[in-house]
């Protein structure tokens, strides 16, 4: 990588290209690697926690649940059905109501 950047600088110097051009080019040809921090949010105890863990956490962290405004049973059901139908989550029809009940216990509109 470094060799290539140097070669580019030399080439740029010969061709009279701008410094900014060289820098941007070299930087964009590099490799970038990051480590994402571990999730900290956890599901809290409640009836149906295991179902929620197995069905929801495959695709997203649980802060998606707790940041919502308190939602009604109908709204939570809408979210679960959206995850199944629109987002393709393999949620068994027979588990939907239990997951909704868990979500109501966590962040339901009373």
């Amino acid at each position, binding site marked *: *990588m470094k060799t*290539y950047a140097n070669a580019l600088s030399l080439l740029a110097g010969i061709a009279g290209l701008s410094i*900014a*051009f060289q820098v*941007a*080019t070299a*930087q*964009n*040809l*590099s*490799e*970038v*690697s*990051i*480590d*994402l*921090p*571990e*999730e*900290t*949010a956890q599901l809290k105890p409640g009836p149906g926690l295991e179902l929620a863990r197995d069905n929801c956490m*495959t*695709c*997203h*962290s649980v*802060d*998606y649940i*707790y*940041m*919502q*405004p*308190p*939602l009604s049973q109908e*709204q939570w059901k809408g*979210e679960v059905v959206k995850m199944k139908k*629109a*987002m*393709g*989550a*393999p949620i068994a029809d027979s588990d939907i109501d239990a997951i909704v009940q868990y979500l109501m216990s966590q*962040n339901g509109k009373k």
Partner: protein
Amino acid sequence: MYDKPKPAVPPTEPDLSRRRFFRASAALGGLGLLGHSGLNAAASIELPMVNGRRELAVYPQKRELILMTARPVQLETPFQLFNDGVFTPNDAFFVRWHLAGVPTQIDGAAFEIKVHGRVKQPLALKVADLQNQFEAVEVAAVCQCSGNSRGFFNPRVAGGEWGNGAMGNALWKGVRLRDVLNKAGIEADAVQVRFNGADGPVLPATPDFVKALDMDVALGEDVLIAYSMNGEPLPLLNGFPVRLIVPGWFATYWVKMLDDIEVINTTDQNFWMNPAYRIPDNSCACMEPGQQGVKTVPINLLNVRSFITSLADGARLKGGHVHEIKGIAFDGGYGIARVLFSSDGGKHWAEAKLGKDHGKYSFRQWTAAFKPVTGRRYELACMAVNHNGESQQPSTSRWNPSGYMRNVVETYRVTAI
């Protein structure tokens, strides 16, 4: 009152909750760069909404930001950072991914962008090819999430519960999309251009995040494939090595880690174009809660917004001194013509002074002088007008079920002490 603005001698004093926030940030500053969220677990802030508590976290290539969700990662810019300058630093820029399959390792030299579909000559371009074969263009432009400020909707709606910090302004450099498309040669029956990034879903059944623009938009002279952001490569979480820049349009179209450009001869109907990211097809993009049968269109241009950045709601100011109130304004690309400032909740307005013009898609900074009387309370407000005569929602904010397009006149209650 605004005849002789003087320099603001006493700095504005943030209210207690803001001050606590600053202290928490300062205490963590020394540890932050280690990037272990565990160290930050104690630091949090409370956005002014129900369930508004958020952790503060340091992510790779980022300073301490508001953590909305960890997987996929979504980070919000703490609002006071918008007071620091007209451009949002890369390490402070908000982050929003839709699907958890975000590559954490990208080789910028090997990364390839495919151009295909209804074109005469499909292309496979490396970043170096973009830089060597096409004219470089720079544009200052606001990138604002469609759902910015969703958490302030009333009644509340489900979704990403952002405060006002899911936006940023940067100087983007790249090449025109239309130059790339013209090199490939657009077929006569082209209807839209569809954009895909290197991110993907966890489950194969989940719709990949793909967005489409009509040809007239895609061929606009300011639509770029950008490889530089504020003079640096993009942070990986903002789309390294290249992302689409659609100045004036909401960020949902600014596809990150852009690796696939497909010209199509239909109107794309994938999930992320329909039913997601749509607004009521009327002049206010609004409707009543529960209203049925409302026709919708894909979200598109930014509407006019303005904010005070130099103080927060609930701030205390020193009475008897002239304060320079600072803020920002922006719109969908007509450019900001005026910003008006009020200290009485919008009953009377005075012209604010506009700062340097960085182009019609950029934040425009503004200032207004304000001399409060000790012991009194004030409702400060700002309202921008663009060069097309459009302004903001004066008092009641619009409502739609997705929480898009909020642009109410913001009010800040302050007390002079």
